[in-house]
């Protein structure tokens, strides 16, 4: 197969290319995925809007009046971890379940769409949403929260949010292979909300029962929070094991989801 790279088509004309460009397909597929979800307020409003809203409320308005700069940094790190979860879980889980239900996945498989383009486009979409949420939170932290971090720390948080969305993409995808489209948001909320509270993202583990804290490492969100804290210099442990666990979970979720899609369509 010959692969060429062409500029992104912005005009209304369909190009009369004589070869198929994988890059172009991926760009168009990812653009379509982003536009599709941006134009779905039931997705875009809570996914992009809730983390900044909660951050302003709990991290800024209700924060202790004389909180140290450390508290501000920890708040920013944990809310970025919180914001990163939703685009992966909902963006992949709900759309996959709907695409399966409505026959779009079948049509895509019948069309000459290169293998992997469908999934890669969704991953790119989730990474862009995660980066957007992360940037909005950073902007709020700098302007309203007076959080002070170095350029490197901000860069690390941004990179972490874009890569950290991947295990949640895998988990969302996996859930999406089990449930029907209409049930998907509710089922994913059953994963999302408990995980947010039981993994130390929205509540410190120190105020939760001991057993909850002990089980927290089973949630991918726990490891993401630890990495986010490390990115702002407030980590409690080495980052290597957390990275390894997240990479392993990502591989596991995608592996099972792929196997289920091949078996059940």
């Amino acid at each position: 197969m010959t692969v060429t790279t062409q500029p992104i088509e912005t005009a209304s004309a369909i190009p009369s290319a004589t070869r198929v460009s994988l890059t172009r397909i991926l760009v168009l597929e990812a653009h379509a995925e982003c536009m599709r979800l941006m134009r779905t307020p039931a997705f875009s409003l809570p996914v992009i809007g809730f983390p900044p809203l909660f951050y302003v409320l709990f991290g800024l308005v209700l924060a202790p009046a004389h909180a140290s700069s450390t508290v501000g940094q920890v708040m920013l790190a944990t809310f970025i971890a919180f914001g990163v979860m939703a685009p992966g879980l909902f963006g992949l889980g709900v759309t996959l379940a709907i695409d399966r239900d409505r026959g779009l996945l079948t049509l895509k498989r019948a069309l000459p769409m290169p293998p992997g383009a469908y999934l890669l486009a969704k991953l790119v979409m989730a990474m862009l949403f995660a980066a957007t949420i992360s940037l909005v939170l950073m902007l709020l932290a700098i302007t309203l929260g007076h959080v002070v971090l170095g350029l490197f720390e901000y860069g690390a948080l941004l990179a972490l949010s874009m890569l950290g969305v991947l295990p949640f993409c895998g988990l969302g995808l996996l859930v999406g292979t089990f449930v029907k489209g209409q049930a998907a948001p509710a089922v994913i909320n059953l994963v999302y909300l408990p995980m947010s509270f039981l993994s130390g993202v929205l509540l410190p583990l120190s105020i939760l029962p001991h057993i909850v804290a002990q089980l927290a490492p089973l949630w991918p969100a726990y490891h993401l929070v630890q990495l986010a804290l490390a990115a702002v210099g407030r980590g409690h442990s080495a980052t290597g094991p957390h990275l390894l666990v997240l990479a392993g979970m990502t591989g596991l979720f995608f592996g099972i989801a792929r196997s289920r899609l091949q078996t059940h369509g």
Partner: protein
Amino acid sequence: MITDSGTAATLDGVVKRYGSTTALDGVGLRIERGRVTALLGANGAGKSTSVAVLLGLTRPDAGSVSLLGSSPQLLATRRRIGVMLQSAALPDTLRVRELLRLTASYYPNPKPIAEVVRSGGIGELLGRLYGKLSGGQQRRVQFALAVCGRPELLFLDEPTTGLDIEAREMVWSVIRALVAQGCAVLLTTHYLEEAEALAHRVAVLVRGRIVADGTLDEVRAQGVRRRISCITRVPPEHTRSWPGVSAARRQQERLEIEATVAEPVVRRLLDLDPDLSGLEVRRAGLAEAFIQLTREVA
């Protein structure tokens, strides 16, 4: 332009089972270039499974499938086909232009947008969201997407459901133009009228088996050939034993007879009742043949 002739796709002795249900039971089907092949069957007869096997969406348990001389699993093969599936809903929040641009990007040599827009009659829809379109407009968009890649083989599943007469005629004319250029078309439809208008070849599926396969005339001939209707005092019971008569019944004042050949029956009716009036003889259509074929097997 496709100039070579021959077979575009085949199913050969294909068996497909889902658990204890046999969806396809030794199906053989040939789709020719430059021809419209209609695959007919009631719901659950195996049409969708046949198409799924041809498209490589599912693998047969036995038998073989060939798509443009190759495996349907290969991307290079699928770049030469166009697909319109009735059951596939496109994303509601994408604009028609975005859908066209994306689908066209899958193909090595897609048609220019002006041609695609003309094919589907979708010029005024380009900037609109797919979910805001009417059912008929969505079908036109799906049809445009199916033909945008200059397919050599086109799969059309109920292509004109929900279309008004004008739009249906336009779709039919595009299909005929594609076929004239050598494109092979597999049409699955419930509308026998559509099959009758477009198909060169008809295959009838009943419970996973092909029970009729031939030209339109050949399949029509497998059903009732003539339908005779007249106002007469001859009772239906009297005619049922006549040679070639398969059924006779009274419909209000009219006698309705189904027969393989009309002339001897008409002659005997006129001999028995010189006052016979309102005589109508018409050739039975594909619908009658289809009903008879499916009834016989069931």
